[in-house]
C-alpha cells in the first residue's frame, strides 16, 4: 500500500478546513498497517502554513501522530473506539457508493 499522506486535512489547517485530529491520523496509519500487513509506505504530500501564523503546527502534529501510530502497530476497523461512527456523515448517496467501493476493494 502506498499512501499519499497530505496533512492539509488536519484540524487547524486554514486551507483545508477539515478537522482530522491527531488521534484520527494515528488510527488511520494503524488501519493502513492492518490492511497492508505492514507493507505500507506513507509519503508526505501537502500541508502548508497558509498565513504564516500556524508555524506548521497541523502538519507537524499529523506527521508525529502517524509515526506514533506506526510504532503502536496494526489494527482493524473493529478496533476503533466505539462512537467513531457518529462522526462519519457522508453527504450524498454518490459518496456513499464510493465508500462502499472502497470497502469492497479492501475486502
Amino acid at each position, binding site marked *: 500500500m*502506498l499512501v499519499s499522506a497530505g496533512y492539509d486535512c488536519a484540524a487547524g489547517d486554514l486551507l483545508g478546513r477539515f478537522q482530522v485530529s491527531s488521534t484520527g491520523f494515528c488510527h488511520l496509519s494503524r488501519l493502513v498497517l492492518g490492511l497492508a500487513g505492514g507493507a505500507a509506505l506513507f509519503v508526505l504530500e501537502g500541508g502548508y502554513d497558509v498565513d504564516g501564523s500556524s508555524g506548521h503546527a497541523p502538519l507537524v502534529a499529523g506527521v508525529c501522530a502517524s509515526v506514533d501510530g506506526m510504532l503502536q502497530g496494526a489494527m482493524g*476497523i473493529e478496533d476503533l473506539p466505539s462512537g467513531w461512527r457518529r462522526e462519519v456523515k457522508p453527504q450524498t448517496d454518490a*459518496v456513499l457508493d464510493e465508500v462502499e467501493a472502497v470497502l469492497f*476493494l479492501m475486502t
Partner: protein
Amino acid sequence: MAHASSPRAGAIRQPLLAYNADHDRHDGRMNENAGHVRAAHDELRRSGLWARCELLLQAPSAAVYAETLHSARHLAMLRTAFLESRGWFCAVCTLENAADAAECMACCTARGRDEGCSFCIPEGKTSVYLCAASLDVALTNCALCAEAARRGCATRTPAFALVRPPGHHASSESFGSYCLLNTVGVTARALLQPSPSAAGAALAQRILIIDWDIHHGDGTQALVLGDGALREACTFVSIHRHDEGFWPKSGGVGEGSGGAAGGRVVNVPLRVRGTATPTTTASSSGWWSRWRRGCSRTRCWCRQGTTARRATCSAVFR
C-alpha cells in the same frame, strides 16, 4: 489495551523513516519549501519518535527511478527550466523573479497558458516559486521512496517518507502546483519492475494507493488510468475536499471510472459545511454504481462476502 485482543493487531516491524538529508536545498518564497520537513523532523526528534525508527537517509542512483514513469520530454523540460534558472522562478510559466502577480500572469499568457497561475493568483499570491535545487531534491525523494517501498515489500516493514516537494498533482507529462515528479507513482512503478532480489519477479503484484491529502490527487489518478503498468496493477482511492471552486476542481464521483478495463479509481469527494456543491461534478455515476446496478442487492452483497467488517460499515454509513 482493547487492541491487544484483536487478531489484526500485532507487532509490526520497526518502522523505517526515509528522510532526504539534502532537503534544505529545496527552498521557495511561497508556502512550498523545506520548512515543513524541517519542522516535522525537529518535533519527531524532540518527542523521541525519531530514535525509535530505523533511518533511511540515502538511496542509490536517483535519476533512473523518475525515468521509469515520467516521459523524457517532461524530464528534459524540467531540467532545462531548473538548470537555467539562477534563483527562484515560477514553476507555471518559468518566469524568474516576477515583481508581482500581474507580471507573472502576463508571462503565463504569453506562453499560451491562458489561465495563468489560476490556482495561486486568486489566493493573492504572486506565483509558484521553487528554486533550482528543488528538482534535485525531488529526484532523490523518488529514489528514497522506491528504496523504502522495496524494503517494505520484501520484509513487510512499514515506512514513512518525510519528503517535499509533494507529488500527487504531477502526471507523466506534466507537473501541477508544487508537484514536479509523482513520487508515489514512481514508487509504484519501481515495485512493479522485475527485481533481482525477488528472482526476477516484481516485488508487488497489486498496489493500493490511498490519498488523504485535502486536494484531489489528479496526477496520480491520470497515471493509474493512463500508464500501462500502473493501470494493470493499481487501485487509487482519493479522499478530498470537493466544493465549488476548490482547487484542482477534479475528483467528483464517477470520474475516471474504468473498472472493467483495469485501472480502478475511487473518488470520495467531501464538502466543507457552508460551501456550495461544485457545479462541474461529473454527472455519470462510477463503475461501481453501474456494476452494482447490474446485479440485485442480495446477490451483490453475497458476492462481496459477509465479513463482519463489511456489514458493520455498511450499516454505519446507511
